[in-house]
């Protein structure tokens, strides 16, 4: 099976869905990659290279370069979705949601409910997230808990190239607003990705690894780090399962609870802030549904409750590392 990067997998998903459905359009800052910059259309395929080639193939009528006004173009996307288009709208860094949250939280997320089920909002809001790129605190947050908290939104956080493609295709075909968050440190990761078009459904966790001693629940870039931790632990005789929920809304509670019950020992690795975060949500779920099976306290491995630091040493210390995940697993196993 062909090896592709996370970036190429997303690009292929956009190409295939735009070719398959003329209602799919793309909009965002610099998605035409270079127009108005150095003068060459699609010179770099968008800020992170994900929309490369789309302008040339589908034209400026479907690949819309927007002004730097998220409040306007995210609102426009929500409206376009109501009228029957299937917009994929990109905000370069999820941190910029600050200026357009009303369009997402109070408009797109509410249309179906407030119009008595007679409105559909098939909009995908793509954005990069996460630390590690030395982008400082206004360009590095992991804000999926913010969106997960809002009923009416679906929230996707892919961890592998194959999942990125299938989840994005599923997002574009979904009739509800979907927030699709891409960790900027994963774009160059490669993996097996089928050439054909396919979907990965929402609300179904991926069992990344099976081991009977402990369960690590991890999301996005933390899956990679959990895998690195599991390898080290295997050398010590500790076999850990890794569950990647892939979507935080809907959440595959069944699989998380099933593995929590099987192993009785759980670590949640999460890059979002610890207060009211994803790890806290999963820990609460397990405490409610699988308390009787637990043999140790649930441990969360998260950043501290601070802004993401800019200084490289501090940023690395801030992000949950494979070592910290492995250490938490050792602690629950020995508890």
């Amino acid at each position, binding site marked *: *099976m062909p090896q592709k990067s996370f970036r190429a997998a997303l690009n292929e998903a956009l190409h295939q869905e735009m070719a398959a459905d003329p209602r799919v359009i793309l909009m965002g800052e610099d998605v035409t990659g270079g127009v108005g910059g150095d003068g060459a259309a699609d010179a770099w395929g968008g800020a992170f290279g994900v929309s490369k080639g789309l302008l040339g193939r589908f034209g400026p009528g479907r690949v819309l370069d927007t002004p730097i006004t998220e409040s306007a173009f995210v609102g426009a996307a929500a409206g376009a979705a109501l009228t029957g288009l299937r917009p994929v709208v990109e905000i370069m860094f999820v941190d910029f949601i600050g200026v357009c949250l009303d369009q997402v939280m109070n408009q797109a997320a509410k249309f179906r409910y407030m119009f008595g089920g007679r409105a559909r909002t098939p909009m995908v809001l793509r954005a990069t997230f996460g630390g590690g790129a030395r982008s400082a605190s206004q360009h590095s947050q992991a804000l999926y808990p913010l969106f997960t908290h809002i009923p009416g939104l679906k929230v996707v956080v892919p961890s592998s190239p194959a999942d990125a493609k299938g989840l994005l295709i599923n997002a574009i075909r979904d009739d509800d607003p979907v927030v699709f968050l891409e960790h900027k440190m994963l774009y160059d990761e490669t993996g097996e990705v*089928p050439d054909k078009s396919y979907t990965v459904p929402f609300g179904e966790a*991926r069992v990344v690894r*099976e081991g009977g001693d402990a369960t690590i629940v991890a999301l996005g870039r933390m899956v990679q780090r959990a895998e690195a931790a599991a390898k080290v632990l295997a050398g010590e005789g500790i076999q850990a399962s890794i569950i990647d929920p892939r979507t935080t809304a809907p959440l595959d509670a069944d699989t998380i609870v099933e593995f929590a019950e099987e192993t009785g020992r759980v670590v949640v690795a999460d890059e979002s802030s610890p207060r009211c975060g994803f790890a806290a949500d999963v820990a609460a779920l397990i405490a409610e549904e699988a308390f009787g099976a637990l043999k140790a306290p649930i441990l969360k491995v998260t950043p501290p409750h601070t802004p993401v630091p800019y200084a490289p040493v501090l940023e690395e210390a801030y992000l949950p590392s494979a070592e910290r995940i492995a250490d938490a697993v050792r602690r629950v196993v020995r508890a």
Partner: protein
Amino acid sequence: MRVQAVTMPKWGMTMTEGKVGAWLKAVGDPVAPGDELLEVETEKIANVVEAQGSGILRRILVQPGQTAAVGAPIALLADADATEAELDAVASEAAVAEGAAGALRESRVDARGLSLNVVSAGSGEGAPLVLLHGWASDASAWMFVQEALAEGRAVHALDLPSHGASEVGGDASIEALADSIETALAKLAPGRLHLAGHSLGGRVALRLAARLGDRVASLALIAPAGLGAVNRGFLDGFLLADRRKPMKEALSLLVADPSAVSSDMVERSLAAKRMDGATQALRALADDALAAPEAGVEADLAAAPAPLLLWGAEDRVIPPAPGATMIEGAGHMPHMERAAEVAARLKAHLEAHP
């Protein structure tokens, strides 16, 4: 052969190395074909390597916990009186051959407008062997036997239309599948060839063998459709399964030992169903090709060379037909569950019909 190297197998396109789990035989133990020799783990699967030859396990070259590249020698089987010098010679020869062995290559072949994926191993003067997998499976189903059969010949495992990495499409009848594969064979194996098929692929192989007449050097059928009623419960279970648990249940009907259903198999089966159009294509095959596969079987059997007929003794998908050679301890997938025994029987059949 006085000394024979046991090499790290290649289970699928992406396997580059394997880790030795545990040795199930000790140095000095006598070994017969089909004996379980050792456990090997990859990133995706763990399985037992069975002995292909017989002799004494004289040397273990890779210890538990260590990894070896695909094709690398991991142990030596030899006669009791083979000298240490003979062992050394074979060990170093095998190490040199390592790079060449274990290469699986992927290519595309056109079949009446559908692009089909082909996984090939080996080369040589021998008539090529073409492997056709079963319904909802793909070429990787042959991964435990393909290499062993590739001595002196090319072995091509096709992904059937709408399966694996082949394009989705085409009509869902046995006749249409045979048409597609026959077109592909014009490029892939234009002269004499051996055919082997499993389940749905077995019925297609039989149909092709009847059509191709003298071009077919030999035919091997593993639990073929058409010689027994297909368990509709399995087909429906697979078609309806949209989550891990029901898929695991559906797949457990395929094997004698349900613990052999790994989470990787479950994920791969779900992923295969989620290719655009794949589930509809599988349903169409279930309702057409697999609805009455026995139609025309008598005539095809009369026109085709006498097949080697293998069947898992515990097959719960298609009950074993009278006259089949039974593979004990295997369900519907003996070429996965009892790979070494199936490989040895297939190999003997190929060699008996050059």
